[in-house]
């Protein structure tokens, strides 16, 4: 299975670089990230030992860019008919789904790798807290994984890649910005403490903030991994559903 996943991964990852898309996404990401860091977050006015100014706006930037990586993964296969080719190869659906997901995830991680020179630049100016930065990078990688899985799932339900992009941005925005208070309102009376904990455990920013503040926990890891696996599982259901 691993070999087949790698074959799909390589094909999808390389396909980003066959068109200018990859370079445009890289350029837009770097410009937006630097703009958010130096302009919106007042980089020079804040204490940035953990590069908080850089990491604070990463989810908003990734919400816009990750769907551009995932939008075509399934929708283009459906539109062009190549889905019939790929799904009639002697490899498991899991290999195909994982290969596509990992290709987009790896590209998302590549974006992050390209910001390392910025870290080096800042480290020459101020003393950085490496533990805090590592934790923040891990949080951002987990966010990329989460948004990639959501994007793959949405793409699997669409034949139009523009619609897949728009739905993915919308879905990402909903999942990141929503506060689950309203869902837990009925249980507030039973136990306020429990309700607050539940609300926090379902909230994206609560987990992301923990990580960029250098306080990663197993609950943060579980949150991102569980939702990503759930999205990929729904992706699988979408593929199976089309067989009916």
């Amino acid at each position: 299975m691993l070999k087949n996943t790698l074959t799909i991964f390589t094909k999808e990852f390389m396909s980003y670089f066959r068109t200018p898309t990859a370079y445009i996404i890289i350029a837009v990401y770097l410009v937006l990230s630097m703009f958010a860091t130096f302009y919106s977050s007042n980089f020079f006015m804040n204490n940035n030992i953990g590069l908080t100014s850089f990491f604070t706006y990463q989810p908003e930037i990734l919400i816009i860019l990750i769907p551009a990586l995932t939008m075509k993964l399934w929708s283009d296969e459906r539109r062009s008919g190549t889905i019939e080719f790929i799904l009639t190869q002697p490899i498991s659906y899991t290999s195909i789904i994982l290969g596509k997901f990992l290709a987009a995830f790896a590209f998302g991680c590549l974006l992050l790798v390209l910001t390392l020179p910025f870290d080096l630049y800042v480290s020459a100016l101020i003393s950085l807290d490496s533990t805090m930065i590592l934790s923040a990078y891990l949080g951002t990688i987990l966010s990329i994984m989460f948004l990639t899985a959501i994007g793959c799932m949405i793409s699997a339900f669409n034949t139009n890649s523009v619609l897949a992009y728009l739905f993915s941005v919308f879905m990402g925005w909903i999942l990141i910005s929503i506060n689950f208070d309203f869902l837990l309102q009925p249980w507030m009376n039973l136990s306020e403490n429990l309700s607050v904990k539940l609300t926090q455990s379902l909230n994206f920013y609560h987990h992301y903030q923990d990580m960029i503040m250098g306080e990663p926990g197993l609950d943060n890891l579980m949150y991102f991994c569980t939702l990503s696996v759930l999205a990929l599982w729904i992706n699988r259901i979408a593929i199976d559903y089309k067989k009916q």
Partner: protein
Amino acid sequence: MIVAKNLSKNFNGIKALDSLSFCLNKGDVVALLGPNGAGKTTLLRILTGYLSPSSGDVEIYGHDPIKERVAVLSKIGYVPENAPLYPEMSTYEFLRFSAKLRNISPEILSQKIFSVIDNLQLYSVLNQRIETLSKGYKHRVALASALMHSPKILILDEPTEGLDPNQKFEMHKFIKNYSQQSIIIISTHILEEVEASANRILLLNKGKLIRDTTPQELKLSGSNYDIASAFRSMTGGSDNA
């Protein structure tokens, strides 16, 4: 060996296939013949596990295409209608990708790729992007990909659609040569193709198998002793031609 028993497929209450039963053996070159909408492509998609049947069973060399799809697909070479390919890849890249998906070992990978390139005369377009190829070449590339692992079953959906007469002739010649070692299923509504390639006909109409016969027998049942008149009379077309 392919065995189908009472195979049916419904799409939103519409019967695309209605209780089909047949058995195909090695050496059979089967033409799935029928008018548009007869259920030919649906049947091929069920045989390849791309669609699941609503009811009934299929066995391909003892395996179920849905429950054991990897085992089944490793025996099948399938060229879907319009030969869908990845346009951004070159011919060689696509064939290499196909070979890897077919789990061909690295030691013989290049040998296998160049063997199909040689058989289908693809040398001249090896480094050309697929999107720039003519329809005939695209068909050949798709066929080369399907033949990569020397499948026991070759399934071709409308294989000569859009090809010029020379390319059609080459395709028929290829089918004849390959039929000795495998089962070939060709979905078509082009009658000349049936005469040129098939030794067995499954005639479908409105999802039903209305005739399991040979080209010779079908000819005899037509008013003009040809396949065209037999086809028209059996599928509800006018027989006054």
